[in-house]
């Protein structure tokens, strides 16, 4: 079993999920509550990765972060490194690619919270962020949990984006999904089988746990 690849994958998925929680929750709340005219455009932009082949998204991330691009230069000045073929690079791509998988469940959860409760909280002196933390989140956490789990699990299994942006560097950008591909290329079906079975068990366990947790909450 390629423990280096597994460790790297878990690290990538955990960091992706964390960033999506920080960025995705406010973004989803804004999408769920705003009445601004350009909301549909932002909505569409967030959802694009659902329809785009991962390789296409990866390709654009690669092209826009190269050493001669604005983002690439800025990044190398700030952090003394490059984004393509680095862990930070695949993390960035992974966050972008997983945005809809987290934000859409978040947003539908928030939209299901009775608007009057939000208004009531505001009228009771709670600021927007406080209302979010004390009313919206407690009433929509099954949806938030679903979004986070989905993003985590989806990152664990991601292949195209990581390959495009990160290449396949052992210990740096080679995740478990890439390791399986390598194993198959090397005709090491036993290793591929081991890792694949692990991913399968992981996926089923995570989903079962999430659903049962949600069901228990809803039944309350």
């Amino acid at each position, binding site marked *: 079993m390629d423990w280096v690849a597994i460790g790297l994958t878990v690290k990538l998925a955990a960091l992706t999920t964390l960033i999506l929680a920080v960025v995705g929750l406010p973004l989803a709340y804004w999408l769920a509550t705003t009445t601004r005219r350009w909301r549909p455009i932002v909505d569409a932009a967030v959802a694009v990765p659902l329809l785009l082949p991962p390789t296409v998204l990866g390709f654009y991330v690669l092209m826009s972060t190269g050493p001669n691009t604005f983002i690439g230069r800025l990044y190398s000045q700030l952090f003394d490194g490059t984004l393509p073929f680095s862990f930070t690079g695949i993390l960035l791509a992974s966050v972008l690619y997983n945005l809809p998988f987290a934000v859409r469940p978040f947003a539908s959860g928030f939209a299901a919270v*009775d608007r*009057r*409760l939000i*208004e*009531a*909280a*505001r*009228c*009771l*002196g*709670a*600021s*927007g962020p406080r209302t979010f933390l*004390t*009313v919206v989140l*407690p*009433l929509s956490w099954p949806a938030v949990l679903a979004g986070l789990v989905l993003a985590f699990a989806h990152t664990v299994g991601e292949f195209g984006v990581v390959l495009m942006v990160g290449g396949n560097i052992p210990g740096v950008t080679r995740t478990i999904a890439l390791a399986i591909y390598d194993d198959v290329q090397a005709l090491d079906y036993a290793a591929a089988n081991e890792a694949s079975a692990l991913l399968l068990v992981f996926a089923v366990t995570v989903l079962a746990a999430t659903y049962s947790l949600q069901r228990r909450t809803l039944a309350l």
Partner: protein
Amino acid sequence: MTLLDVDFEFKYRSGAGVACRWRDPVGDPRVTVFLGASGSGKTTILRCLAGLERPQRGHVRLGDHVWSDAVRRIHLPPDRRDVGVLFQDYALFPHLTVERNVAFGARQMPHAAVAARTAELLDTFRLRGLEQRRPRQLSGGQQQRVALARAVFRRPKLLLLDEPLSALDRPTGDELREELRSLIRALAIPAYIVSHDRVDALTLADRTVLVDHGQIVQSGTTQEVFDRPASPAAARLVGVDTILLGRIASVEDGLARIIVAGQDVRAQAPADSGHDAALLIRAEDVALARHDVADSSVMNRWRATVIAHAPEGPFVRVAVDCGFRLSALVTRDAWHRLALGPGDEAWAIVKAASIRALARN
């Protein structure tokens, strides 16, 4: 005295909206009822006062505080206006206990002060023993009390109530109206109540604002507005065929003698003697006679002068003056037999049991 100065226009994207203009001294704990049909825009006015909607034009000011000013691009969000709002179906937080719902507004207060204020409100609103319940485990009346306690926790400058009684069935609503009346008076916070029910205005309001098609059509003391509706729209809103305002002179065995424009009116006592009362009389409950029928069981017999009459389906609607104006609905046949015309003397007769008497603030 602080002045609530309101002059704004608000339009929904659908095109519907309100234009609202009125000034009103606030304080001296006073209750104002916005009376209007559903869809008239009265709730929108309340939402603009609370800061939940942003008027496209005009301003809302309370004393020196500018809450909203379209020209200066000022719009204070609800959490910075210091108002307490009671929502139509209460909007209690389902995930919080009664106790935590009530104390939701606690902000930058020492723990002991929060506990003390919560305890005080639980007592005032008779919520003892329910502290750990969730909103869905409460009756309608209990929910209303929790919502009201929650709204006044921070001692807001204004209390805004959106149709506080419409979520309840009629008997419960009547009961809670009484309760709401005494609670609002005990709280001593100026209250603005939105309602489609004129009974709310008659029982709760010192001042009444009539709202029709997104416009304020009349405002003034409840007595003024109900006595002298200024327009046909206002008259339709104050409705009921006859509304009389008087004072209870005496009460005996539950029956009150109420003085209205010098006349005695008998009805079931809504309060003790000395209180003001509003009397609602439906035209179909008023009978006319040429002579006094002293030997009948009817207690209210007033000498009247016929003012006008007009056919209304199989009936004739007759307006008479008994010192106050009264509307009667009699059959065409009866009207011919009476052979009355404008200026003629007659007797108006109403059973005490068919008069709806309400206690007024």
